[in-house]
């Protein structure tokens, strides 16, 4: 068998460069920087909502920042009681509009995660929820996009937070699409 030649190395480099240079579409951006209050909650079997896992939260903030939208994150301490009590999206949006802290827009991410079944060595979970974006002054006109996806965890000890993290790519894409749709008209 012949050894590696310089030509082989060159072709390998070209292949890697091709992968690295895949065209990426830049996101739409706001016409001017805008402060957006971001509230995200995750619900499951427990009686109260909890914070979004860090992996999901970071991607949402990145989605906002990439569009010249400055995220102002509401801490879980402020969200836990009111959003555990208010369980419907319009109720939560109305509360968020009243507690936006001077932001011009608001983004609400509500996720639920449920264990389904064991399949082929994995634990199947369903992650579903709603991503909403709108102006603080008009919570009833917020745009919404649903998320409903299955994820497959490796370990039994993993629960709602790990399921949501596993769905982070899907949630991020839903948020990106929603933000682009919103900015295209209202941005």
């Amino acid at each position, binding site marked *: 068998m012949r050894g590696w030649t310089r030509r082989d190395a060159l072709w390998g480099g070209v292949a890697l460069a091709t992968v690295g240079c895949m065209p990426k579409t830049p996101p739409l951006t706001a016409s001017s920087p805008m402060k957006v209050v971001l509230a995200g909650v995750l619900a499951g079997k427990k009686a*109260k909502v909890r914070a979004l896992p860090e992996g999901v939260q970071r991607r949402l903030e990145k989605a906002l920042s990439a569009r010249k939208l400055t995220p102002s994150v509401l801490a879980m301490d402020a969200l836990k009681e009111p959003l555990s009590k208010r369980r419907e999206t319009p109720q939560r949006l109305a509360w968020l509009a009243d507690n936006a802290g001077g932001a011009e827009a608001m983004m609400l991410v509500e996720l639920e995660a449920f264990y389904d079944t*064991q399949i082929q060595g994995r634990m199947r979970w369903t992650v579903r929820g709603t991503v909403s974006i709108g102006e603080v002054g008009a919570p009833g006109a917020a745009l919404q996009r649903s998320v409903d996806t299955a994820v*497959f965890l490796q370990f*039994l000890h993993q629960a709602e937070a790990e399921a949501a993290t596993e769905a982070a790519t899907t949630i991020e894409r839903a948020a990106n699409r929603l933000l682009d749709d919103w900015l295209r008209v209202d941005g």
Partner: protein
Amino acid sequence: MLLSSLLLSAVLTGPAHAGRAQVTGYLRAGARPDFQGAGATLGYWNLYGRLMNEGPYAMIELDYDIIEREPMSKEPWTDLHFRVEGGAISRASSDGSLGGFLTSQLYVRGGNVLLPDVTWQVGTLDRFLGDLGLYDMRPAQIFFETVGASALWERPRFEWLVGFGDSGFFVNPQAYSTILTPGTLFRVKVLDQLEVGGGGMYRYEPEGQGNVNAPHQTPGLDYESWIRGEAVQTWMQQNPNRAIDFPNPESTDAKSGKLVGYLGTGGYGPVIWNNLFVSWEKVHPQTTSTEWYEGSEYTLYVHDFTDQRTVFLVGDELQLRVIPGRFDIAWGGLYGRHKDGDNAIAPTDHARTYMSTVWRGQVYITDTVHWLTETSIAKEVSENGNMYREHYDSLFANTGGRPDTRGLENGDTDTRYTWQGKAGVVLNPLGKGIYSRPSLRFLYGAQYSNQNNAFGNSFVETIDQYNAFGNVERHWHHVLSLETEAWF
């Protein structure tokens, strides 16, 4: 079972919640151009790592939520699961027939009924404490073959399953006989970084006089003659002209069971998680075997010849995040010992020891483009003499290199060594992670074994002088794999 399921559904159906259907499943499929024209798997089985050693497979499950679970609620919920699975992809097996698929799971669950945090399940009961992903093995699994009812009590740091059912449908599908199967399984999260689990199940097949499918033993048979397939012939020779007196089977009961243990730890330093599983199983005795003698078929009842088979397994898998976001590894080990107290003379799969280690590393070139490398080394030892053939012309070589045409051995060595290496590009649309799926893989694999042609094949093995195809000495095996694997 169906009646119970319907009753459970009826009891739970009340509030006006819309039903919700989901389809879930698993598949692996692809092409495996085989440079040696063999069976398109790199080696014989997944002791050398599941990758490139398993064939195509598909599994599809309907999950119908009759009453959906509500978040932050203790309200009753119920769902129905129906799973079909098999390996008949294109014409890879069963000639592509849907008959190659099995209805493997069918159950109805109800949660928060009678007791909060308890899920009742009626139907199939399969449950495991985790998976050795590198091997596609689940040593800590119970109720795989059981249909019945179970209750699973789940708390944040504790879960406990108790079940009872019948394994007769699965163990003896063509000759059903009740196999009562109680069992239990628990898992405790001691710390966030440590959990333990264990459990077991017991199978009891009662004596059933008059039931041809119940366990029996045909008396007067000799074990060695039986394993040679000559038990009837031997009896007839010892009892000439007394065919009519061939002994009737004597009824007995059959017992078997399984114990499992689990230790999980992780979430510190580079350790993502480590799963250690151990299991000991007493295999359920075989009911019958058949022999032909002078044009007649004889059914032999062989409970006493097959009631001392055990399987001991220890498996471990460690996942490490070596360079966060750039390089992860998974490292597994497996030890298995199969013993057969009835058989001290013939090499079989019930009398062997094996051990292996599998290492997989994955480099993340980008979020979705990865480079995979896997290697494994394995040793398999037959406890009852030679079982493997090292050379194509060693058909007549037995212990000491001497031919033994009446010997029970097969081959010229009792030990098989196997090395495998696999590497290639993996596309993972959902991002980083050794077990991120779906995966589209483009791999090359090589195997070296001391056994000749140690992979599934249709090669001519005879060294008869009229063999028109010839024989080949081949210890290396090379395979390309263009494959995909997904849970969905």
